[in-house]
């Protein structure tokens, strides 16, 4: 895959994720938001964008806290390991 093709594929993935996030927000589906923001963080990591990844992981953590999701402690631990929460 060429660089251009890879960028186009990544952009498509982000657009698809954006649409899913909007739906999940509209539905108030906390567990799905955790899953989607976690995926967004992974994409950002793959794209070499750690700050963007931290932003998404923060959102995954907050929605995990809100809905009592079992991933909340692990998400917090990941943020703490990156120096993003005390």
């Amino acid at each position: 895959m060429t660089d251009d093709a890879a960028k186009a594929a990544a952009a498509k993935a982000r657009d698809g994720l954006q649409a899913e996030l909007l739906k999940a927000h509209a539905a108030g589906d906390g567990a799905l938001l955790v899953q989607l923001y976690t995926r967004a963080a992974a994409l950002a990591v793959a794209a070499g964008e750690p700050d963007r990844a931290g932003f998404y992981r923060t959102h995954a953590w907050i929605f995990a806290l809100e809905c009592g999701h079992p991933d909340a402690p692990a998400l917090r631990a990941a943020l703490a390991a990156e120096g993003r929460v005390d």
Partner: protein
Amino acid sequence: MCAQSSLSDVLKPIADARGLPNDHYTSDALYHEEREPLWFDTWAGLCVAAEIPEPGDAKPFDFLGVPVFALHGRDGVIRVFQNICRHRGMILVTEPRKIEGAIRCPYHSWCYSHQGRLVATPHVGGQGQNSHPDIRREELGLIEVRSHVWRGVVFINLSGKAAEFTELHRELIARWSEFEVPVYHGGADSMFQLECRTNWKLAVENYCESYHLPWVHPGLNSYSRLEDHYNIENPGKFSGQGTAVYRQIKDDDGSVFPDFPGLSDKWDTAGEYLTIMPNVMLGVQRDHVFAIILEPRGPRTTLEHIHLFYAAPDTSENLRRKNAEQWRLVFVEDIGVVEGMQAARGATGFDGGRFSPVMDGPTHLFHQWVAQRLTDTRQAAR
């Protein structure tokens, strides 16, 4: 200061006393002045525990202009918090709902535990940076309001200045010690609300005495005659009335509600009806008890929240409905009286009225409680 405020007349012995002046029922300024001494500095009823029956259940309330919410925590403890985020002061809970995990502020998503601890401050140190040395989470938990659950009613002491609930109401708890057993809210068919165009104090006054019964509730007299009632007076804490001829309600097949266990013979035919000042009107009888929580909505409007409780969790639905309807009819009959007294508080010639030294003792005690607490607060402010 209101020109009609002559509280010294209220504080006289009953034979010479007059009631509270008109403006204590109509004035926005006095309504506001009452908040601290009559409501915030003592234990007032907020709701019943049955309104938040399961862990995670939360419900917001407007407590005389102060937004609060009650939460049935995952640890099983019912707590009350001021309904405000410590960040930018956003309301946290806007409608009754289930809170499975953290209480998340809808504005910037600060999150609080069910114990009120601040657990997350997203982006507070910049994007993806969720801590900042100047935002000390340990100092920024929710503002918890002192609360105490008694007989299924959630009481709060907003200012934190009152004595412990069990100390303040030691005499009442002792008086009704035989009823210190589990009570079971009857559920949706055993709660109803009545909106009254009246000041909350008139609802209390009407509940304090029994000799309006033959005039206002003629139907009650078939089983509750005037001479079978007695006054109950405890200055500064509670007042009301009792009856010696309570009769159980019966279902179409003659069945009755189960009794509370272990009651003495007195309660075979006794019933007692008291107001815990300021706003919780309670009734106890052998087979069911009730609580009326008064919610003032300004000086001229009061919402009465009525809740019926039983000795067992699985009582007859038909009988519960019949019982709720019976009480609804009684309380609706009272609306005409309390609204009539409210309307009459516009009469410029009214001087607060008089009290029957024989029959109006509990009502006078309530007036005295109001007048004394207002007087003490005014004197302390000088």
